């Protein structure tokens, strides 16, 4: 199944995350998965609608699903690494069965656990993330061919009427920044950003 992504360009996580954030105009919620994924979300510029996961590996998509179910009029974007996604593949079917209209899932696939020493994932040379997603019921799942294709797919997903999964091949670079590890403040500011609470 590795042939499916043979023609896709190897991109950079920070670059494509910055491109994504630059497109957001409607206070979209963005959930960043563990490690480099949320480090680059942080480095791309903090927004009140960003949530940074400091543990609970694999739960970026479920957290985003919860936000999407609670605020169906807000677009929700989840960023996840391939290693994280492998820990929670069942979540893809849960999302497929609930069909939230407002959820975009982005998978950064470098085939390695970069942050722990770049060990290859068990899927690296044998599995195809998009094929897994389609097989899990997420029929609107695609590989982004390059940066321009990624931006086009993001634009489409932000007005789609079904959940979208976009996978990108990325390089082995670490995250550019480091998220401030203050979970209470991260959660509280996210709730302010989503209009659930007002500051004291």
């Amino acid at each position, binding site marked *: 199944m590795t042939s499916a992504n043979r023609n896709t360009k190897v991109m950079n996580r920070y670059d494509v995350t910055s491109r994504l954030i630059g497109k957001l105009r409607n206070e979209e919620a963005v959930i960043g998965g563990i490690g480099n994924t949320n480090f680059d979300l942080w480095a791309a510029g903090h927004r009140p609608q960003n949530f940074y996961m400091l543990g609970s590996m694999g739960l970026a998509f479920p957290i985003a699903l*919860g936000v999407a179910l609670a605020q169906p009029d807000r677009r929700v974007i989840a960023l996840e690494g391939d290693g994280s996604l492998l820990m929670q593949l069942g979540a893809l079917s849960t999302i497929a069965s609930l069909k939230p209209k407002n959820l975009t899932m982005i998978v950064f696939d470098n085939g390695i656990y970069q942050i722990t020493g770049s060990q290859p994932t068990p899927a690296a040379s044998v599995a195809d993330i998009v094929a897994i997603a389609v097989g899990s019921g997420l029929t609107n799942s695609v590989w982004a061919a390059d940066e321009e294709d990624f931006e086009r797919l993001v634009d489409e997903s932000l007005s789609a009427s079904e959940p979208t999964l976009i996978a990108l091949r990325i390089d082995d670079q670490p995250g550019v920044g480091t998220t401030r590890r203050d979970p209470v403040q991260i959660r509280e500011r996210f709730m302010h950003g989503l209009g659930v609470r007002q500051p004291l």
Partner: protein
Amino acid sequence: MAIAEQHTPPPTPHDKAEKTWHGIVLQTLKRNDVNLVPYVPDRVLTPLIKNLHADPFFTTFATAREEEAVGILAGAWMAGRRGALLMQTSGFATLANVLASLAVPYQIPLIMFVSERGTLGEFNYGQALVCRTTRPVLDSLALEHHTITRIDELEFIVDRSIKQAVATQAPVALILNPLLTGGKTFDK
């Protein structure tokens, strides 16, 4: 299942349903505006799950793993919607990491209902063993938990526990003991 089945009502009317453990749980969730209820199923929870599905007030669905449901409920809470997770003791045993890395440090009022297997007539040794990990894990994180054995105490405990979880922004586990639910017996 004998006791649980005796008390299994038709989905309506509510006056009958409220006298069962699952009717009381459903009505107390509703009264506290807890309307998002993911679960990993358990035989004992079946009448509650069935009645949640039948009631349009609730959004209820199965997840593949319990920790997935914790993620969903954390996201929903932060976006302004209340929920609760239904699972079995063996499912709770998979949650130590997500409790310690998401629910507790981010101060999420995660409401957990745990159908207790592994005690009072358990026939599967593995269930008996995993059951014994439940309270030590909860205690190790200093989490609020109650074991409910009596139907006359059920509404008070559930109602007060939901309110406390929300007010203190802290998880709570409500362990539904076989004395309350009838549990699962050898012949099933």
